[in-house]
C-alpha cells in the first residue's frame, strides 16, 4: 500500500514524558469553556474578544494548531495542511475526544481476514500537530497490555467512534502501564454511551493506585495528579529533592511562554477554517432532514 511519506515510519518515540503535566483540561477555566459547541456560541466565551470563534475550539480541535516553533512556522504550508485536513474531515468524521475517552478505531488492514481490523482502547495520549497529529490507544487483551498509535489523518482509517466521552485529571495517562490491568481493560464489544449534546464533557476524577516499584518510568517526578502509590523509603527517595526543585525564574519568562504557545490572533486564523467547515456540514445535515 503506497502511502505519502508523511505517514511513513517514524520511530521517534511519541511517548515522551513532558517536564510538567499541569492538566490544562482539568482547570476550572477549561471546564467553563468546554460546554460545547456551535449552538451555544452565545454562552461560550470567544477565543479573542469580538471574534466568532468559541474558546472551546482549542480543546476540541487541538490538531488544528501548528507547531509553535517560530523558526518552523510557515503560514502558507499551514494553510495547505488545514485544507487537506478539512478535505479528510469531510470524508471521515473525526469526533471530539480527550485523553481518557474510550475510542474504537476501524482501519482497513490487508492482513486481516475480512480486510478490516477494529481496536478498542482508552486514549492515553494525544499529540502531534496538523496532518501529523496522532493518538495512542491502550487496552489489556488476555492479560497483555497492547498500545497502538493512530495517525488521525491516516487515509487507511475508516471510522473513529467515541464509546465513552470523558476527561481525566491528566492529559497523558502513560502511567496506566504501571497500574493494575483493570484500569485499562475494555471489552471489544463495549457499547457506546452517547453524550448528550450541550452538556459539559464529564471529568473523571478517578485516582489510580499504581503497582509497587519498579516502574517503567519514574512517574512521580512529573506532577501527574491521577495516581497514588505506596511510598517506600529507599535511597532513591533522597534524590527526588533535586528533581522536584522548581525553577523559579520560569514563571516570569515571557519569551519562554511565547515560544511554547501560539498567539491568539494566529489561533483565530487557524480555527476560522474549521468554523466555516462546521457551518457547512450543519447546513448539509439540515437539508438532508
Amino acid at each position, binding site marked *: 500500500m503506497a502511502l505519502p511519506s508523511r*505517514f*511513513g*515510519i*517514524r*520511530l521517534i*518515540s*511519541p*511517548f515522551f*514524558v513532558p*517536564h*510538567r503535566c*499541569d492538566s490544562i483540561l482539568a482547570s476550572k477555566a477549561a471546564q467553563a469553556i468546554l460546554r460545547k459547541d456551535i449552538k451555544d456560541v452565545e454562552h461560550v466565551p470567544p477565543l479573542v474578544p469580538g471574534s466568532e470563534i468559541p474558546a472551546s475550539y482549542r480543546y476540541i480541535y487541538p490538531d488544528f494548531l501548528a507547531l509553535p516553533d517560530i523558526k518552523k512556522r510557515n503560514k502558507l504550508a499551514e494553510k495547505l495542511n488545514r485544507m487537506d485536513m478539512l478535505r479528510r474531515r469531510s470524508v471521515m468524521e473525526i469526533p471530539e475526544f480527550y485523553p481518557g475517552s474510550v475510542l474504537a478505531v476501524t*482501519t482497513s*488492514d*490487508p*492482513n*486481516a481476514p475480512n480486510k478490516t*481490523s477494529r*481496536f478498542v482502547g482508552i486514549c492515553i495520549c494525544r499529540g502531534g500537530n496538523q496532518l501529523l497529529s*496522532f493518538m495512542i490507544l491502550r487496552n489489556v*487483551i*488476555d*492479560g*497483555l*497490555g*497492547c*498500545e*497502538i*498509535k*493512530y*495517525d488521525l489523518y*491516516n487515509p*487507511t482509517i475508516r471510522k473513529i467512534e467515541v464509546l465513552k466521552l470523558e476527561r481525566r485529571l491528566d492529559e497523558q495517562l502513560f502511567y496506566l*502501564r504501571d497500574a493494575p490491568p483493570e484500569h485499562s481493560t475494555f471489552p471489544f464489544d463495549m457499547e457506546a454511551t452517547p453524550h448528550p449534546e450541550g452538556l459539559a464533557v464529564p471529568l473523571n476524577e478517578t485516582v489510580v493506585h499504581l503497582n509497587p516499584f519498579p516502574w517503567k*518510568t*519514574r512517574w512521580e*517526578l512529573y*506532577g*501527574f*495528579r491521577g495516581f*497514588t502509590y*505506596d*511510598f*517506600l*523509603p529507599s*535511597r532513591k*527517595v*533522597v*534524590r*527526588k*529533592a*533535586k*528533581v*522536584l*526543585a*522548581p*525553577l*523559579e525564574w*520560569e*514563571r516570569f519568562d515571557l519569551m519562554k511562554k511565547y515560544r511554547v504557545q501560539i498567539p491568539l490572533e494566529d489561533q483565530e486564523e487557524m480555527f476560522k477554517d474549521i468554523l466555516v467547515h462546521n457551518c457547512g456540514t450543519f447546513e448539509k445535515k439540515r437539508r438532508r432532514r
Partner: protein
Amino acid sequence: MKWGKEFYFSTVLPRLNRITLPQQAKSGIPISSHPRQSTSFNMISRICSARPPTALLHNLLPAEASFFSLASSSSFSTSATLFKIRKLTRMRVVDNSALGQQATAAGKPAKVFHIYNKTSVGGLGDKVMCAIMGQKKRGYIVGVVRRQRDLIPTMDTNNLVLINDDGSPLGTRITVPIPMMLRSKRGDIAKILSIATRFV
C-alpha cells in the same frame, strides 16, 4: 532559597507525609551515629515508621506542583529507554509449551543470544536463538515493547514463541494476542501463526 537536602527535609517531606518534623530533623543533625547508614536514609526510615506507609506526592500544593521541572543538574538520566531486543535480553515465552511454562514458573526467562538478522536488533517476526532452562532453543519474536510505527501494536512485554529445529512450534496454543502485521511475513513463521488465538 537552596533546593537541596535541607529543603527536602524541611518542606517537601513533611508535605509528603502530612506531618511536622521534630526540630532536630529539620536542622539536619544526624539522629543515628551508625557509620554505615547515611543520615538522610535513617531519617526517612524513622519518619516513615511512625506513620502508615501510604503517602501522596500530589499533596503538594497544586500551584507549586505545576512549576516543578527537571533541574539540569540531576545526577541521573531521565531519558526514555529504547527497549531494544539484543543479545542477553530476557523474553517472555507466551506459548503453552511445557518448557516455557517450566521456565516461567522457575522465574528464569528465556535469554536471547543470537538474532537472525543483519542489524542484530530484534523486531517483530524475527527469529532468535535463546537459552532457556539450560537448553538451546530457537523462537520467533511476536510482541515487542519498543515503539513501532502507527497501526502496529506495542506490547507491555517482549514475547517469544519457541520452535523446534524443524520450525514447528513447541506448544499447541499461544495465550496472548499477536500483531496482525505478522501475517504478512513469509516462511516458517506461518506455522506458529496457525496456533495463535487472537490477532490485534
